[in-house]
């Protein structure tokens, strides 16, 4: 060995008489935990999360079919003049927005997994829930799962186009991304599906086209039959309001600022909504959904509170709730 060999080079000594460069015995992760600690924490985390999977899912079915039936009944009632239109408009907005929540459970097969007894119900809930926002379940499921696989990846996350520097800009972008010539929202989804080229993607594109044509057909027919205001207040406007609300609370708010936030514990934020947990569609604890998509939406807050000590050790900012 020569004198230049680094193994023979004496370490610099500090005033305390210790080596200047202290290295841990085990390599540490970004949160300062060694791999044994990380593994133990993960085991503990999974054991706690397991207790929040499942539970009664029938309220999702009741809400889906009940709200859809009421919404459908608005159309003949409006045409025959037996409807309180302002009230029906408010309810239609709620149904359009809330429908995404029930559909979202179906996207993750939380109502019935393939081969299970209630699989048909899972698929039916998914298919019906998003009709008011003219967003077919086939497309919604593929795009949402892509969002989970590539969360916050600027090139691969289909929802990355919702990113905006602040809340006001985020609201604006929910509208801007729906403009016909802008590569955002459903136009962005269509392009990604076209590039995927799988049979499922082709089916999703076909169903999207059909649903949009039905939507336009209903609007045009009602409008030229003298019910343009009714069509606007029961479907057209609730769809736009619902899509903006969904984009803001389900996409922008929990994932902002997105850039570089691709790690397991970075994909979503824990935040406090001005509208509260329910009106923000349980998105305050959306990180739990990304960690464990099998936990139903209504149980994510309870799961978060149980997992909070572990999440804090993982470096998650839990100061908001």
């Amino acid at each position, binding site marked *: 060995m020569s004198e230049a060999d680094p193994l023979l080079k004496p370490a610099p000594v500090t005033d305390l008489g210790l080596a200047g460069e202290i290295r841990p015995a085990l390599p540490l992760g970004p949160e300062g935990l060694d791999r044994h600690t990380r593994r133990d924490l993960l085991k503990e985390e999974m054991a706690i999360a397991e207790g929040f999977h499942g539970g009664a899912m029938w309220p999702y079915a009741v809400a889906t079919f009940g709200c859809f039936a009421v919404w459908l009944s608005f159309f003949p009632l409006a045409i025959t003049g037996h409807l309180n239109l302002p009230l029906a408009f408010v309810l239609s907005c709620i149904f359009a927005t809330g429908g995404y929540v029930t559909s979202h459970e179906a996207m993750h097969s939380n109502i019935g997994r393939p081969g299970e007894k209630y699989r048909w119900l899972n698929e039916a809930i998914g298919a019906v829930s998003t009709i008011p926002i003219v967003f077919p379940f086939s497309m919604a499921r593929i795009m949402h799962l892509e969002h989970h696989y590539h969360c916050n990846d600027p090139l691969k996350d289909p929802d990355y186009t919702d990113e905006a520097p602040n809340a006001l800009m985020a609201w604006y972008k929910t509208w801007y991304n729906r*403009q*016909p*010539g*802008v590569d955002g929202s459903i136009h962005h989804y269509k392009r990604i599906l076209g590039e995927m080229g799988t049979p499922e993607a082709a089916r999703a594109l076909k169903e999207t*086209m059909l649903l*949009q044509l039905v939507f*336009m057909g209903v*609007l*045009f027919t009602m*409008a*030229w039959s*003298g019910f*343009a*205001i009714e*069509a*606007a207040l029961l479907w*057209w406007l609730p769809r736009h309001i619902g899509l903006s609300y969904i984009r803001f609370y389900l996409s922008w708010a929990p994932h902002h600022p997105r850039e570089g936030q691709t790690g397991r514990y970075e994909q979503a934020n824990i935040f406090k909504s001005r509208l509260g947990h329910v009106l923000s569609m349980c998105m305050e604890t959306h990180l739990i959904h990304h960690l464990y998509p099998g936990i139903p939406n209504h149980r994510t807050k309870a799961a978060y509170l149980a997992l909070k000590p572990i999440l804090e050790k993982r470096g998650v900012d839990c100061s908001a709730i």
Partner: protein
Amino acid sequence: MQSAVKQLFHWMPFLFGIGFIAPLVAQTMQSWGIAAPFGMSPIAFGLLIGAPWGFVTVLRGRWL
């Protein structure tokens, strides 16, 4: 078939202007008791707004 559908969706804002915005404008005016200018019928006025607006949207790619 695919090309025809693409064309249909490309021109959809224009069709939307005629098919939905025009009657919506006309019926809103009637509902609020607003008369169309120059002695036009409400639907003619609605078409005068909806059709060009939809056409410009096809060209610009944005409604506003």
